[in-house]
């Protein structure tokens, strides 16, 4: 039942903590990561109703620094990073020349000439290579800092209340997608109000040697507020309910940001040239080739990644992610559909849209994304 993968996966600065907590560990993109500590459904619900603590140290951190750092990122990425204010973060993507997505990223501008690019673990080396190539010959330096950071996320409605007494930051002033230097539990960190769960929350980049101390301080402070450690299984169902794409599922080299409904991240109005501009400009004007939609299952069988979506029994798309939704109590999925099928299903899908679940057509309904939006 284990995924045979060689060589031995990398440990994070918190792996020993997870082992002490009795976590089920899994090899994820070459890292030994907690999949769950007990019940992933309970962890999921804790994040929706209280708070969860995540080790995300597998994420790749790439520093881009120097007088030309902003210009280098404007060329390398689809976003307008030179317009980003210091202390702010942005969700963006790195694309190939043909417009295909190489990774989705969060970029923090720590200072005028200092950026931190956070990449998915599986893509970190690709992103590093591409950024280095794309910045070559400029006054920007790309450095892989992944080993210099542990990343801890605290997510959920109680997150701010738990974190507040431990930090010198005034959390009321730390806006969504802000990220700047602060202290947590006496340790110097990069504190960001970002996440991948659909809840309010923070991501805390620490030095590796501080990770256990910050984790323990948050655990202790959160004990009275129903904080639980949460693994990658809960993280995946949380992001799916929140309608957030996962690289390798909704995003990949064959997908453009427009396909994924994320054309807004492509800043065609920026003056600088950027890798993929010509292809993406064309793609922005063309009719979509596929549409990312949300599906809700009507039986208890769960649509999974790779299953065909059927319209009147005929394949019209494919499921990219699917799982039982702990919040909604029904199976949910994201899928790419042919535009005609998506349009028709939106008008008149009842009884005609289904997912081929291992040979049987299980009825599904088209539902708006995201599946879950946190109460205002």
């Amino acid at each position, binding site marked *: *039942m*284990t995924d*045979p993968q060689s060589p031995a996966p990398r440990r994070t600065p918190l792996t020993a903590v997870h082992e002490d907590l009795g976590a*089920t560990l899994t090899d994820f993109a070459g890292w030994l990561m907690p*999949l*769950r500590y007990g*019940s*992933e*459904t309970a962890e999921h619900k804790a994040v929706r109703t209280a708070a969860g603590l995540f080790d995300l140290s597998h994420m790749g951190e790439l520093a881009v620094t120097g007088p030309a750092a902003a210009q280098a990122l404007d060329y390398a990425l689809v976003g307008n990073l030179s317009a980003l204010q210091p202390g702010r973060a942005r969700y963006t993507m790195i694309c190939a020349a043909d417009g295909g997505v190489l990774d989705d990223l969060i970029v923090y501008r720590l200072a005028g000439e200092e950026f931190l690019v956070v990449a998915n673990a599986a893509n970190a080396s690709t992103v590093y290579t591409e950024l280095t190539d794309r910045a070559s010959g400029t006054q920007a330096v790309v450095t892989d800092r992944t080993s210099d950071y542990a990343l801890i996320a605290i997510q959920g409605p109680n997150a701010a209340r738990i974190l507040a007494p431990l930090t010198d930051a005034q959390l009321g002033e730390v806006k969504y997608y802000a990220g700047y230097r602060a202290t947590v539990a006496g340790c110097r960190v990069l504190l960001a109000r970002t996440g991948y769960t659909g809840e309010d929350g923070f991501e805390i980049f620490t030095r590796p040697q501080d990770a256990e101390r910050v984790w323990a301080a948050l655990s202790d402070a959160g004990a009275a507020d129903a904080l639980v450690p949460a693994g990658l*299984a809960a993280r*995946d*169902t949380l992001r799916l309910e929140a309608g957030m794409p996962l690289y390798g599922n909704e995003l990949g080299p064959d997908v453009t940001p427009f396909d994924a409904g994320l054309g807004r991240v492509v800043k065609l109005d920026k003056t600088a040239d950027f890798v993929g501009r010509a292809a993406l400009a064309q793609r922005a004007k063309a009719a979509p080739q596929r549409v990312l939609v949300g599906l809700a299952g009507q039986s*208890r*069988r*769960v649509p*999974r990644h790779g299953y065909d979506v059927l319209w009147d029994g005929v394949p019209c798309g494919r499921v990219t992610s699917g*799982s*039982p939704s702990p919040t909604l109590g029904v199976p949910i999925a994201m899928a790419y559909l042919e535009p005609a099928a998506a349009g028709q299903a939106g008008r008149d899908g009842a009884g005609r849209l289904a997912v081929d679940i*291992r040979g049987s057509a299980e009825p599904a309904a088209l539902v708006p994304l995201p599946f879950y939006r946190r109460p205002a």
Partner: protein
Amino acid sequence: MTVPDELSYTPEHEWVSISGTTASVGITDHAQRALGDVVFVSVPPPGTKVTAGEPCGEVESTKSVSDLYSPVDGEVTEVNAEIDDDPGLVNSDPYGAGWLFKVQLAAGDGEAPPGLLSAQEYERLTANPQ
């Protein structure tokens, strides 16, 4: 991980308990841990003929779906109706309240059918995956 001595096992992680000519079947503690939270179990309805080593249902968890294999030859006589309402019983009590179905053995001699693993053998199997 628990592997009760008195049960027999399959390499596909089912357990079977034979009493007279009836076999009770479920999935092991190892299996439920590997699957994570079980959300739905499909079992063969009473009257279904099942064959040892053949798929006869499926177990859906948050992250995956797995085939359920019959450990024995025979006919299904009873299914655990509680599982339909509370699939989590498979996680919380895999060898007890989380049992899945009962089979009237085709052989009918009360002997454990061939091909099943003892608790010791199953423990060795799960200690050395692959």
